[in-house]
């Protein structure tokens, strides 16, 4: 859905794992942006009907970019900044309590 204008070399960027794939992005990039760069078409399916959703507003308003970040589900990926080694996963439907660390 989106691509970076310039590649970020690993030494200049932050490498995170998104749905099992490593992606290197500039520092200060939001997790939602990183997920789009990683090629994710949608970041979650809704708890109501299970339809796919992708980040929409990119500014903390719409809550459509909810993702599981370092094991904690339903975090607003557009407001979370990438940290080295972060593990991010797409989420399906409602969260399960067992998924929390």
């Amino acid at each position, binding site marked *: 859905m989106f691509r970076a204008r310039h590649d970020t070399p690993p030494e200049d960027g932050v490498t995170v794992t998104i749905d099992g794939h490593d992606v290197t992005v500039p520092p200060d990039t939001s997790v939602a942006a990183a997920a789009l760069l990683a090629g994710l078409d949608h970041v979650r399916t809704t*708890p109501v009907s299970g339809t796919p959703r992708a980040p929409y507003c990119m500014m903390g308003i719409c809550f459509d970019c909810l993702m599981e970040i370092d094991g*904690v589900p*339903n975090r607003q990926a557009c407001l979370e900044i990438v940290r080295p080694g972060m593990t991010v996963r797409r989420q399906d*439907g*409602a*969260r*399960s*309590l067992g998924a*929390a*660390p």
Partner: protein
Amino acid sequence: MVQADVVVIGGGIIGSAIAYGLRSLGCDVVLLDEGDVALRAARGNFGLVWVQGKGLGMRRYAEWARQSADLWPAFADELHARSGIDVAYRKDGGLMLCLGEDELNRRRWELAQLTHQAGPDGYDCTLLDRQQVQELIPDAPLGDEVSGGSYSPHDGDCNPLRLLNAVHHAFRAVGGQYRPDHRAETITREDDGFTVTANRTVFRAAKLVLAAGHGITHLAPQIGLQVPIHPERGQVLVTERVRPFLRLPINGIRQTDEGTIMLGSSAEDVGFDERTTADTMRHIADRNLRALPCLRHLRLNRVWGALRVLTPDDFPVYEQSVSHPGAYVATSHSGVSLAAIHAGPVARWIADGEEPSEFNQFSTKRFHVSGTA
């Protein structure tokens, strides 16, 4: 002017259930409700259909709550059939959790009192130890402080917003007239009935039911009744949706059919202030996390404050005015638990004069005893 057999003032869960019951008995009923923003205890409700613990100090109320719980399964089915709305009623029993030995001891004492008060009929509620509680809710690991609890098979829960919606739908489906944005202003008695003015419209009826929650305070004197009620704020927290994990409703923790977790609640004497406060939110979160620590990563979606409608002894009031026969008042802070009995026996009492046994115990006379008791 609108003419009817009965005008019911109050579109909350009590007024709606009574109006629906009256209409089902064949009465021509108009239900008057307020607008989009009003003091609505019914919209702040927790959704328990509860028996255990109710009525300590008034045997008749303990029986009354149990009788309503007995009527609830058929009531839920009937609503579903008439409104098409499933109110998500489940009656798998309910739990009260105790933290620490003191709470468990107090619970033991309360159950003993309720059992003694019930007499030969007995009181169907069991005290449980920690292990037994855990077995009932295996997917929700208990916090270290949980000492035990009590279980009643008669308890249950429902979706309270859908209940209100379903009762309104069913009321209209059987031919009732619902009038939103019609706040009752004045009531006057005429030779053969009552006249209510609301939103510049005049409603006339032989009978009148006042079920207006806090609106009762200024309306009841117009039908010759003094009903001492006061507001008590309860704050309720609701979380994001989670996959089903809590098999039974608990006093204070309930997973809704949609998956959200409701957490309650507080009891604050703050007049008509419906706002929420950080301190009470913190207290509710803390108390319930000590019971079920697995909730700690859940995000709050919403917190609200709603005002319970309480009488001095917290028990309901049902009464026909002596000075204004044909005018009735009904109030309780358990509108959901009692919805089934309001739609049934209470509606029959108003429609046909079929008075439930020992019903005078629910009159306001109990507050007007002379001298200092």
